[in-house]
């Protein structure tokens, strides 16, 4: 790898200077500045006033913070299980020539190109208590007692939103696994067949271990995505009813931009960052490993 790169004193810096300065000003700098803002009292208009760790003290006593944290956890756990399993299953099913292969793939990809706002609106209509498709279907099946307000029941609403997020995520996971399956040597599969492995055994002991690097990436990206979740909650419930569907990103937005407690909002975002950073490092470590293989 090193031989392919050229030694030069000034050239790389000339190429880097403009993009890197922009990146430092708009991304890297702000990241650090959030730490400072989290230790201030700031309404967004007047200058921030330094107050030390008071925002954090308040945060750790705020019940909404813990509800949000728990909801993010539900999101993470759902995201690293259901879409991963479903995406892998679909990838296995579609990784062969079947009639209408393109149609099947496109159907699962489609939700990925829709914005979360559009998806949130369409699903809010599906969940509409009186006229939505879901409750209409339940009533048709004479399951009236199950035809509830999906977005207004405190114990249901978070799961109802996670279902929507899952619906979008499956296609993405499928793409990654399909790409991973391209790299599986067909010779190995033939060998396992010759050795008398059943289809499931081949999957369990040959294919799945070979896909391990993809699984690591999928799981890490899923965790990071669930910690960033904002749009769906914002469009569908705004965290309600009574904060029961609040997630950290949404909690942060409401505190900062609706209640003008921007210092407090920054503190929430720092917590979000500190949780994410663990997984960002896992991802970077994976990148470093592949670098070494060159």
């Amino acid at each position, binding site marked *: 790898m090193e031989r392919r*790169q050229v030694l030069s004193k000034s050239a790389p810096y000339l190429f880097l200077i403009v993009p890197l300065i922009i990146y430092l000003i708009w991304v890297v700098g702000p990241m650090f500045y959030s730490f400072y*803002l989290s230790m201030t009292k700031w309404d967004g208009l007047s200058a921030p006033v330094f107050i030390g760790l008071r925002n954090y003290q308040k945060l750790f006593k705020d019940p909404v913070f813990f509800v949000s944290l728990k909801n993010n956890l539900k999101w993470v756990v759902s995201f690293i299980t259901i879409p991963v399993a479903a995406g892998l299953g679909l990838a296995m099913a579609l990784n062969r020539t079947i009639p209408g292969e393109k149609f099947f793939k496109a*159907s699962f*990809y489609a939700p990925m190109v829709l914005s979360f706002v559009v998806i949130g609106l369409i699903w809010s209509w599906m969940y509409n208590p009186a006229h939505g498709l879901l409750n209409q279907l339940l009533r048709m099946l004479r399951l009236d007692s199950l035809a509830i307000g999906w977005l207004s029941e405190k114990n249901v609403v978070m799961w109802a939103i996670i279902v929507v997020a899952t619906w979008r995520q499956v296609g993405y996971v499928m793409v990654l696994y399909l790409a991973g399956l391209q790299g599986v040597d067909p010779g190995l599969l033939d060998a396992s067949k010759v050795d008398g492995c059943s289809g499931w055994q081949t999957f369990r002991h040959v294919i799945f271990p070979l896909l391990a690097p993809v699984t690591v990436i999928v799981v890490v990206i899923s965790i990071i995505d669930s910690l960033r979740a904002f749009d769906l909650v914002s469009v569908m419930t705004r965290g309600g009813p009574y904060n029961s569907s609040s997630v950290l990103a949404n909690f942060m937005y409401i505190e900062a931009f609706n209640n003008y407690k921007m210092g407090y909002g920054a503190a929430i975002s720092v917590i*979000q960052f500190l949780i994410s950073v663990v997984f960002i490092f896992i991802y970077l470590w994976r990148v470093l490993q592949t670098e070494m293989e060159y």
Partner: protein
Amino acid sequence: MTTRKFFSSPWRTLGFVALLLVTFIWLVPLLTALVTAFRSNDDIMLQGGPFSLPREIVLTNFQTAWERGGLSRYLPNSFIITLPSLLLTLFLSSLSAYALARFRFRGNRLIFFLYVGGTLLPFQVLMLPVFRLTDALGLYDTFAGLIAIHTAFQLGFCTFLLRNYMRTVPGEIMEAARIDGCGEFRIWWQIMMPLTMPAIAALATLEFTWIFNDYLWAIVLLRNDALKPVTAGLATLQGQYIMDWTVIVAGALLATVPTIFVFLFLQRYFIEGLTLGATKG
């Protein structure tokens, strides 16, 4: 395998039917939206919900969303924000990717990791400082502010992907050009860029949908309704037409047309971009 041979096995046929069923269920939300948008609100309510047969097909929902709902304004705004951001971020990241892929220098890997790590940040940790920055620069509530943050933030992912792609280009070609007295900028523009086009095409489709679909930055950095892109506009529409689901859904579908268009015609690039981004890492 021919279709006939495929269906000669009963198990395979059964599997196929199961897959067909799952796919249909998957598409139900989209089909429902499509059917809803072409009916009048009264029609749905009176005939007993979305399963009823429509009495008539109407286009008025689209018209209402477009004219009174403001989509005629929001949708062009989305393009005004997305296209410059897309071009700028592709251009700038091709510069930084070239530096990181071709040259050995102190800090190469550190800068690379800065870009890769940045793409995974929760946006919230940038939100308030960027809000303050746009305010200080006089860019709050302007297209320029939004274009700046999209350009900067997407630099990370684009640099990551292009740099990995550029490293697969054999160095000999560029060496030969250098010996012939070609300057580095000409090598970048005339040799590297044409060879990187497949990756840039894949990246462009992906980035187009990402920037076009952004909602968070739009609501943080814009206040003026006349500047809002279609995602933020739809949220406003939802507030205006609270009970009028047919109009809301029609608006949502209209907002989707550009990305669906990209998806239908550039699906291969879109998927390529996604896989390049994740598996090369």
